[in-house]
């Protein structure tokens, strides 16, 4: 699959049985609807989650194209007042796209799903994790 922003080939990352697609070029993340099902572990809940986002029609940010169906994705607002965040969601519910800059916001504030499973996963994959990187540095030296 190619990155909707910079068209580079995305690498699949798997952690604890869930996969995401990550672009090493721009740092963007694609979360496939099927993976969302696996992560949330309840098909109904994850379908509801995709429906719960409010579509932002006023947004002027450039539209991204869904890497699966190549149709323009919708800008949707997630999170409650004050902690809002704009992400891209495929019209045909193929999945969600997070730009590199949005990642930090997600990890810090926005609440996407009720059990915060998305945040937990992304935090584990991408956040600075001193424990992991230190052992890594030791091994490299």
């Amino acid at each position: 699959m190619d990155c909707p922003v910079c068209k580079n080939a995305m690498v699949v990352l798997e952690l604890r049985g869930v996969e995401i697609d990550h672009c090493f070029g721009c740092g963007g993340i694609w979360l496939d609807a099927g993976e969302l099902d696996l992560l949330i572990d309840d098909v109904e809940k994850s379908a509801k989650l995709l429906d719960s986002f409010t579509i932002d029609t006023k947004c002027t940010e450039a539209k991204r194209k869904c890497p699966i169906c190549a149709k323009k994705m919708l800008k949707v607002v997630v999170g409650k007042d004050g902690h809002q965040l704009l992400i891209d969601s495929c019209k045909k519910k193929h999945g969600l796209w997070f730009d590199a800059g949005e990642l930090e916001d997600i990890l810090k504030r926005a609440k996407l799903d009720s059990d915060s499973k998305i945040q937990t996963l992304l935090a584990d994959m991408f956040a600075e994790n001193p424990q992991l990187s230190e052992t890594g540095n030791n091994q490299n030296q």
Partner: protein
Amino acid sequence: MWELIRANKRNSIILMTLMAMVLLLLGFLIGLFIFGPEGGFFGLVIATVIWLILTLISFSSGDQIFLAASGAKPVTKDVNPQLFNVVEEMTIAAGMGKMPKIYIIADPAPNAFATGRKPETSSIAVTAGLLGRLNRDELQGVIAHEMSHIINRDILFVTMAGVMLGTIVLLSQIFLRGMFYSSMGSRRRYSSGGKGGGQAAILFLIIAIIAAILAPIMAQLLYFALSRRREYLADAGGARLTRYPEGLASALEKIANDPSPQLAAANKASAPMYIVNPFKKKGQMKLSDLTSTHPPISERIRILRNMTHGASFKDYSDAYTSTTKHKTIVPVSSFTKEQVAIRQASEKAKSQELKSKQMRQVGDIMRVVNGFVFLSCVCGLKLKIPPNFKASTVKCPRCKRTLEVPKQ
């Protein structure tokens, strides 16, 4: 088994002779029209030559073309040991000397087909979606069905009949188009001849047009009859090979109820090769029996589930009769007095967790087939790198280690 193959050959030869007659008659009538009263024989020769050429092409490389067109990739045992083992088991059960080659199609819609004219050069292809959804018994049922196609020489017959159908369609298309354009361009040519000749020409014209319209329809009906019959026989053979009709029945059920979009690589010509019709239509089950290459799946499942007494051809035939109220589809000569007991299920139902794990494995199989490189970082993160990834190193986003991407 051999009895069945022989009876099968006889039936197919009758159907194919009928098709050949349709083809020759069409050639004759077209020749009669184009070249006058003596031209019938000439048209016949031309029709035969076209048919021979197409047959030669499809025989020399037909299965390779078909495999390539469906995007099937050959796999070795380490990609999917279970699939490999199941094919080997069915090869043994069928008493075949050589194992068919195994291919996987990277497509999420569950389906399977077999190709190859002779058992020795045959291949079996399954989609990744099939591997992901079926348990061992169901997979065995599907492979046994395909294996039956191979030992019944179905691929040979379906290919030959398909080519004949193609020739008939081609001939009548060329003729009808030629008619259309020539009648638009130069009407005069036909009317300038003698008056009697003109009348004969008009008569021949009408007969030839009717033949050109009817021939493809006739041929298609014969073709459908042939391929449908063979689906039932392959189901019967599959049940007998595995001694477990429920495996195939529940596989068919899963395939029929699958929500994935239809198989991308299938086309009308290749449709009869698949275990279930790759073209999903709303209300397909209700479509007329005459116009489908496959019997309705629900009926196939019901027949298999009605085989409560045993797994022999006789048992299938009885189940067929009691389910459809038609007379037997299996040639009576193949009823040996064998007692074929049904065995028990070998596997319990899988939990949901295992199913998603299985789907993950299928995704990985599709990626291996498509040339992805798999890296495992020490921190536990797995990276699956596509073949068109350009950089030679990646930095693990989790623990920030630098990983080498091996060149293929």
